[in-house]
């Protein structure tokens, strides 16, 4: 299996790369020099975390739009927001900023991959969030922050897409690898 990790020059990308590398042949490319031919050759596209907002990365948004029905797509943090943006969602500032926090999140009954009403402890680095209401025919919010109710996971029921607002790559997420494993192994 070929994995392509699109790096938005974050200081956490390579933590994610180490997690991903056990699932297949991984290539890491900077967001500004990804070639379409490389994307085409990959089985899974992963959008990395990164500074700023989705609209700062038009090339990544374009790749999402072009390949969302053709490839399995995973987004982490900014990557989650890129997916949300690509599905018509709005990314806005949140009141409390979560940089370096370890908090609880809870799953709901809409998840295909994770058991219902389950709590996980996760590491977080984000000042922006998905603005709600978020209406999408294909995407469901399947995890929420226990404290603020902010969306933590987006799963698609029609395409093979999953975004996590938290960081499975952080040392603050125990068993971070299990999130990646569940997302990668399940077909839509």
């Amino acid at each position, binding site marked *: 299996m070929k994995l392509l990790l699109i790096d938005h*020059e974050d*200081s*956490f990308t390579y933590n994610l790369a*180490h997690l991903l590398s056990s699932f297949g042949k991984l290539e890491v490319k900077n967001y500004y020099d990804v070639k379409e031919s490389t994307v085409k050759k990959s089985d899974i596209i992963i959008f990395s975390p990164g500074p700023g907002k989705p609209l700062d990365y038009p090339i990544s948004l374009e790749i999402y739009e072009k390949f969302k029905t053709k490839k399995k797509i995973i987004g982490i943090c*900014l990557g989650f927001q890129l997916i949300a943006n690509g599905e018509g969602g709005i990314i806005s500032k949140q009141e409390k900023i979560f*940089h*370096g926090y370890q908090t609880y999140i809870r799953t709901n009954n809409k998840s295909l991959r994770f058991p219902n009403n389950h709590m996980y402890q996760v590491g977080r*680095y984000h000042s922006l969030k998905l603005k709600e209401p978020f209406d999408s025919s294909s995407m469901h919010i399947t995890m929420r922050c226990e404290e603020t109710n902010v969306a933590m996971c987006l799963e698609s029921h029609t395409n093979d897409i999953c975004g996590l607002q938290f960081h499975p*790559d952080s040392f603050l997420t125990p068993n971070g690898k299990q999130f990646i494993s569940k997302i990668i192994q399940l077909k839509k």
Partner: protein
Amino acid sequence: MNNSAILKSLLASDKDIIIYRNSEKNNFELYTDFIEKINLNINNLHKFLNKLDKFKAKKKYDCYIGFFGYELLCKNLNLTVNKDKHAFPEGVFFRPQTKIVIDSKIDIFTKSKLDLIKSLKSLKNSKNISKNKIKVSPSVENYEKIFNKFKKNIKAGETYQIKIAQKYSNKKDLDIAKLFFQLMKKNLSPESFCIRTKEFNVISCSPENLFKVKGNKIVTSPIAGTVSRKKIKSTKQARQFFENNQKEDKEHNMIVDLERNDLSRITKPSSVKIQKLKFVQKYQYIYHNVSDISGTLHENVKLSQIVKAMMPGGSVIGCPKINTLKLLNKEEKEPRRIYTGSFGYFRSIKDMRFNIIIRSILNFNNNNEVFVASGVILDSTAKNEYHENFLKAKSLLDLLK
């Protein structure tokens, strides 16, 4: 001439020397008789690093020892920096032929002891410049402006943590070697060093190791979290303070993940481990919160890859590193020069150690400069951080009085 007499006249001479603290052996190493001195810039950096890949020290005194300056490290990441009005070297490495180990006894390892003794000249005359008023840059007003700008950047997610540097400077002639040992008596920091040359001088009581390589193992020990010993009286209390203080704790988490990331660029998958999470180290005026993180280097890793992945050290910059450096370089007007660069030695690709240059005095062009930095935190005010900076600089500013 016995060893102790040689050391004494060497310190009193005007020969170029480097003194480096060896915290593992709890002693000092003095290097001199440099047969090579390489001034680095962005055009020759990679040639130098590639040459070192093949270098293996055979003699006890042999190594390359020196520093990479902040501006050079930024250029190495393709970032634009402010131009330095004075031609300060962006990085310098020396290759010594003499090493003196200063411990309960003094050992000399040298190519030629006779040459060493012959080279020692008499005392140099120190010129006393009386003007010693300390200037600070940026001013409180400008600091506050930058601080508030960066607060907005944090709210917009453009940086998660950012550290503004402040420069204290004055004019005073310094007896570098004497001051260094004077400072070490009060503030024996594990990564201390001093460089004395005709062109410039550096004294640093850096507490922070950026990385050590032994064999194929690499370890980094980032510091994130500082508290004054005025408020806190024991290591145990300091530990509680760091645990309970949200700001310090979250800052530290971020730096642990950042360093795990930087190590992951050059190490084998799944080999990166947190060896020790959040332990307290005690200094003259402050306590620090430290973690140890290690990894197993890729086979055939190159020095240029290690330098690019690890430098400048993230704990003194902020996170994520690249965008934070861009924001800093846009707002800061003073060249940082050695500050937040890295000093260390290289004996082979399997044996090297580099620190982060903080808590340092750079004496250059008749001027002494001390930089300190602290983080922009949303629920903190510019004045608080301005004060924290002064605290960090205090043991060095004492020397400039």
